[in-house]
C-alpha cells in the first residue's frame, strides 16, 4: 500500500541520528552534567543512525523478496512478507 514504511522510518532516524551526532560532537561537554557526564546526544545519535540504516537495508531485502515472489509464475495468492 503506497510506500514501504521502512523508507520514511529509515530516512527520519538517519537524519535524527546525524543531527544528534553532529550536535553531540560540537557541543560543550559541560552540557552533559545533567545526563551523568554521558554525551547522550553523541552515543544515542549513533544508535538512531544505525537503526535508520538498518531500516533501509530491511526495505531493500523486502523489495527483493517481493520481486522474487512476482517472478514465480502462478505463485499462491498469499503474499506474506
Amino acid at each position, binding site marked *: *500500500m*503506497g*510506500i514501504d*514504511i521502512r523508507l*520514511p*522510518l529509515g*530516512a*527520519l*532516524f538517519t*537524519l*535524527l541520528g546525524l*543531527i*544528534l551526532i553532529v*550536535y*553531540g560532537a560540537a*557541543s560543550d561537554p559541560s*552540557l*552533559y*552534567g*545533567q*545526563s*551523568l557526564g*554521558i554525551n*547522550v*546526544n553523541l552515543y*544515542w*545519535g549513533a544508535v*538512531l543512525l544505525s*537503526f535508520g540504516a538498518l531500516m533501509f537495508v530491511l526495505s531493500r531485502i523486502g523489495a527483493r523478496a517481493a520481486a522474487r515472489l512476482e517472478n514465480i509464475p502462478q505463485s*499462491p495468492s*498469499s*503474499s*506474506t*512478507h
Partner: protein
Amino acid sequence: MTGIDWLILGLYFAFVLGIGVILKGSVKTSTDFFLAGRAIPAWVAGLAFMSANLGAQEVIGMGASGAKYGIATSHFYWIGAIPAMVFVGIFMMPFYYGSRARSVPEYLRLRFDEKTRGLNAISFAVMTIFSSGISMYAIAKLIQTLHVFDGVFQRLGLRSSWIFDFAILISAIVVLVYTFLGGLSSAIYNEVLQFFLIVAGFLPLSYLGLKNVGGWSGLKATLGTSYTHSWSGLSHANTNRLGVEWFGLAMGLGFVLSFGYWCTDFLVVQRAMAAKSMSAARRTPLIGAFPKMLFPFLVILPGLIAIALPTQPAVPPHARVVVSAEPPGKGIIPMKVDASSGLPMLDKDGKPQLDYDLAVPSMLLHYFPPGMLGLGLTALLASFMSGMAGNVTAFNTVWTYDIYQSYIRPGATDAHYLWMGRTATVFGIAFSVAAAYMANRFNNIMDMLQLVFAFVNAPLFATFLLGMFWKRTTGHAAFTGLLAGTTAAAIHHGLTLPAGAVVGIKGGWLAVTHVYPSEMAQNFWTAIYAWSTCFVITIIVSLVTRAPEESKLVGLVYSLTPKPEEEPLAWYARPATLALMVLAGTVLLNIIFW
C-alpha cells in the same frame, strides 16, 4: 527549548505531513481511506494496534501512576492488556476479519440487528470525539505548564496566555492534514513512526535514571517493597498501594475492562481489520503484545525514578522552563499548584498534593540536555497526535459506514462516501477542538461524560463473548443486555463510594451502602457488576426470544464457522506460537517483579 530541539520537532512535523501527502496518491476508494485498502503487513498493523492506544495521556498517566503506585502499575499492561490481546488475535479475529465487516458496529449488525449496531455506533462516535478532545486539552495544558513555548512567544511578542490555543490549533491542523489526505494508512504509518520515537526518546531516559539511582536494587533500597513488588500485598486491599484486592484486580481489570477495550473497541480493532490477510489480522494483536509487555520499563519506570530521586528544586541549568519559586515536592515531582491562586493544593489532611502528571516531563527536563530534550518532547507530542489521529480515523469510519450510510444516505456511490469520510474528518476534529475548550471551562461536565462512557463500555465484552461463541444469542437479548449492564453500572456507582471521597461525581448519589478502599477498586467492581448483569440478562432474554437462523450466522459464530485456513507460515510466526511466547514472557515478568 533551544534551536536544536526545534529542529528535531520541525523534522518530525515535516515527515508526518510528508507521509500524508505521499499516501494521498494511493487513496482511490473508500476502502483505501477507511481500511487502508486492507493491505497493511502484520508487523506494521501490530505496532499500530499497540500505539493507537499509546496516546500522550497514556504515557503521562502511566508515569504518574508509576510514581504513585509503583511497579504495580504494570498490572495495567501485564494483566490488563496481554491476555486480552492474545484472546482477540486467536479467537475473535477470525470473525471480525472473516465476516468482512468494515467496523465493529457493522459486525454487531451482521451478528445481531440494526438497533444493537445503532446503539454501539452512536455511543462510540460520541465517545471518540470527547476522548480526542480531552487528550487535546491535556496536552495543551501540559505544554502550558512546562513553559516549553514561553521563550519563543516572548521573542515574538505574543501573550503567553495564547500558548494553550496555539498548542491546540497546531496539533489539530497537523492531525487534520495527514488524516484528511491519507486516511487510515496515514494514521497507521504515523503510529509506527510514533512507536519508534517513543522508544528512541524514553529508552535513554530509563537508562540514565536507573543508572543514577543505582539500578533496580538501588531503587528497591530507596523506595521499599510496596513500590517495587507487583503482586505481594494484593491479598487484601489495605496492604498495597493500589487499594485493590487480587480478585477485583484480576476480574475487574484483567477480565472485564481489558477484554472490553482490546477486544471490542473499534479504535484498536480497526488496525487489525486493515491487515492484508486473515493470518496478518490474527497476528496483529499478538505482534503488538510483545512491545506492550516491555513498555512498563519505558513509561512506568521513569515515574518510579522521579519519586526516588533526592528532593530538590529541579532547575537544570539551560532550561528556564521550570519555575524555580515553586516549593519542592517529593523526588523531582513538584507539588500541585492551584492555577488561580498560585498556592499549593492541599489534600484533606492538609498535606500538599503532588502533581504526578509532571513526573515524566520532569524526568525529561532533569536528564536530557538540548538535543535529546527535543527528541523526548517530540516523542511526547507524537504520541499525543497519533492517539488523536486514532480517534479521528475510528470516528470517520463509524460515522460514514454505520451512521451516514445506514441511516442518512444509503445507496450512494463509493466516491460519495469517500468524500463523506474526508468531511467527517474535518468536523470530527472541529468537534474535538470544541470538546477540548469545554474541558477547559467545565471540568465537571467532562468528568461526568467519562463516567457515562465507562458505564456504556463496561458490559460490551459480555455481548461479544456470547455473540461469538453461543449461536443461540439473539439481537433483542444483546440490546437488552447492553442497556441492563449500563444501568447496573450506574446503580452500583450510585450506591458506593471510595474512601475519603464526597458524595457526588465520585459515587454514592443514590445512597452509600458500601465504601471501597480506593477509587480504583470502585471502578473495577462497577465493571464487574455491569459485565455480570449484561451476561446474565443476555442469556435469559436469548432463551425466551426466537433463535436466529443458523444459516445467517456462518462466519459470525464460532460453532458455525469453519476453522480459518492457516497460511504456510514458519512455525515461529504462527499465531499460536506467538501467543504462547508472549504469555510465557508475561508470566515470567510477573514472577520477576512479584
